């Protein structure tokens, strides 16, 4: 898999290159600022972009904005954003950039858990989502959005893992449930969140997305 990496800390960039190489991915370009990221993505046409949020020259949210531009320019390009802090607003913007999958928003700390991180990378690259457990936990904590109050505690747990981007099998493993039971819970969640099956394959993302939209309303 061809990956473009954007990270301004040399130490971390080198580490990530090593990590991705160890996971059998090919880092075709590694850049240290947002402009370079846009150019590299244009030139190399990678399948996956991994980028930091804050990058030179202004050290604000340049990486995130570059990611949003890329999502617009190259539909289908998978983007994983790494951030030092969990900011729902960033996650919401990123997810709203396309209702299709192929996006991820993870705390930088997650790279420490190598296997899980690689798993998240693969998921995003193959069109899934990877939302940081901390973002998801925050979203679920906010009980002020009506549709969510209708969910049972078990459904909450399922939604949480779903939002992180886990598959039915993965959710079943974590919660010690059969895949069938997970499927039933997910069906209930879709019903309660008013997501009819006709919408297509990405109802999982839509569930999380709707959730994000609900909570970003005043």
């Amino acid at each position, binding site marked *: 898999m061809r990956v473009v990496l954007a990270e301004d800390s040399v130490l971390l960039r080198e580490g990530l290159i090593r990590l991705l190489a160890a996971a059998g991915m090919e880092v075709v370009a590694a850049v240290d600022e947002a402009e370079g990221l846009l150019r590299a993505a244009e030139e190399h046409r990678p399948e996956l972009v991994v980028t930091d949020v804050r990058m030179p020259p202004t050290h604000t*949210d340049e990486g995130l904005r570059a990611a949003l531009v890329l999502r617009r320019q190259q539909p289908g390009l998978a983007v994983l954003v790494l951030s030092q802090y969990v900011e729902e607003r960033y996650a919401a913007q990123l997810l709203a950039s396309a209702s299709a999958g192929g996006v991820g928003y993870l705390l*930088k700390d997650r790279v420490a858990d190598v296997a899980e991180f690689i798993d998240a990378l693969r998921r995003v690259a193959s069109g899934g989502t990877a939302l940081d457990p901390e973002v998801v936990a925050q979203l679920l904590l906010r009980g002020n959005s009506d549709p969510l109050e209708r969910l049972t505690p078990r459904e909450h747990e399922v939604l949480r893992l779903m939002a992180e981007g886990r598959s039915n099998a993965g959710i079943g493993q974590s919660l010690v449930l059969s895949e069938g039971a997970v499927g039933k819970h997910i069906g209930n969640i879709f019903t309660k969140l008013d997501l009819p099956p006709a919408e297509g394959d990405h109802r999982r993302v839509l569930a999380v997305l709707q959730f994000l939209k609900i909570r970003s309303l005043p």
Partner: protein
Amino acid sequence: MKVPRPWSARAWLDTAHVMIGFPVGVLLGGLTLLLAVAPPLLRRALPWFTRVQRSRLHAFQGVRIPPVPAPAGWREPMTWRQIGYHLLSPVVGVAGAVLVALAWGGAVVGLLAFLPPKLQEPPLEFALDLRDNRVQLAFMLVGLALLVLAPFLARGMAALDLSVARALLGPSRTELGQRIETLTESRAGVIDAADAERRRIERDLHDGAQQRLVSLAMNLGLARATLTDLPEPAREAIEQAHEEAKQALKELRDFVRGLHPAVLNDQGLDAALSGVAARAPFPVKLRVDIERRTTPTIEAVAFFTVSEALTNIAKHAAATRAEVSVRRERDRLHVLVHDDGCGGARMDGGTGLRGLAQRIDSVDGTLRLSSPLGGPTTIEVELPCE
């Protein structure tokens, strides 16, 4: 004003003040004139002269003339005002000393007029014969009047000296105005600098320690994942180091975010506060209504207010929900934090609210707290913004 009686401490202090003011004033006034031939010397000596007079006024009158910044040169009006005082104080001193001495002396002489001049005949033929009872009575009445008058006179002369000193040794109205302006500016500078410093520390930690720790944790994670054939103790050590690195990373992250979140710079209060609200362990209803962003310093104070208030609620209030509203009305930013907890929050209770009040105070904001025992608690903050 308290009426001084002839035997009160005030009367004696005023008298002493006036009497000592005379030689001191004459001495310093003379020295000022003398040193006028060597201006640099005079300029050096002036602060000393002024200090002597200031301490005299403090010793006898208990008044501290507010000091002005040391006069630097001849172009400073303060230098000339000081010279003016030192040249004027001998005049005031002599006039005061003569008047007060005459009053006290007259009182003594008058009151003792009944003592017959036994020892010798008056040397001069006096128009008034002191052996005459009526003359004696008149003298005594005048003496009595002077006895009552003397303290007033001493008071008056001391007050005159004091007002001259206030006018010439203290800061003038324009100087005070300038001073306030300078202080206001420098305070704003200090606050902005502190805020900038907070952001700089955040940046430094973000670009330095945090990245290093992430890298360390990642390498340990990689080692833990790949080096599976190591002997047990080595693997355990790696595992432990990995966990500790992750924990350190989390602690550092929590600390840095409290300093000054980057998202506040990028996207303003709304985004930053939604992050804080989301982190609270209870539902928070957030409403941010700002059409135009305020200065970074005011934004930082508003952010700190909400973040500190929510932290306090989480720690002490046992609340099930909270409401945060931030709105801007022209040049005021209103921040309101309300919770349904147990109340009883006090400004003097802990360091949390006091620190908050201080930070709000530093930008001329106001804080109102309503927290009856049993709740609910409402914190209302108003911050000025351009």
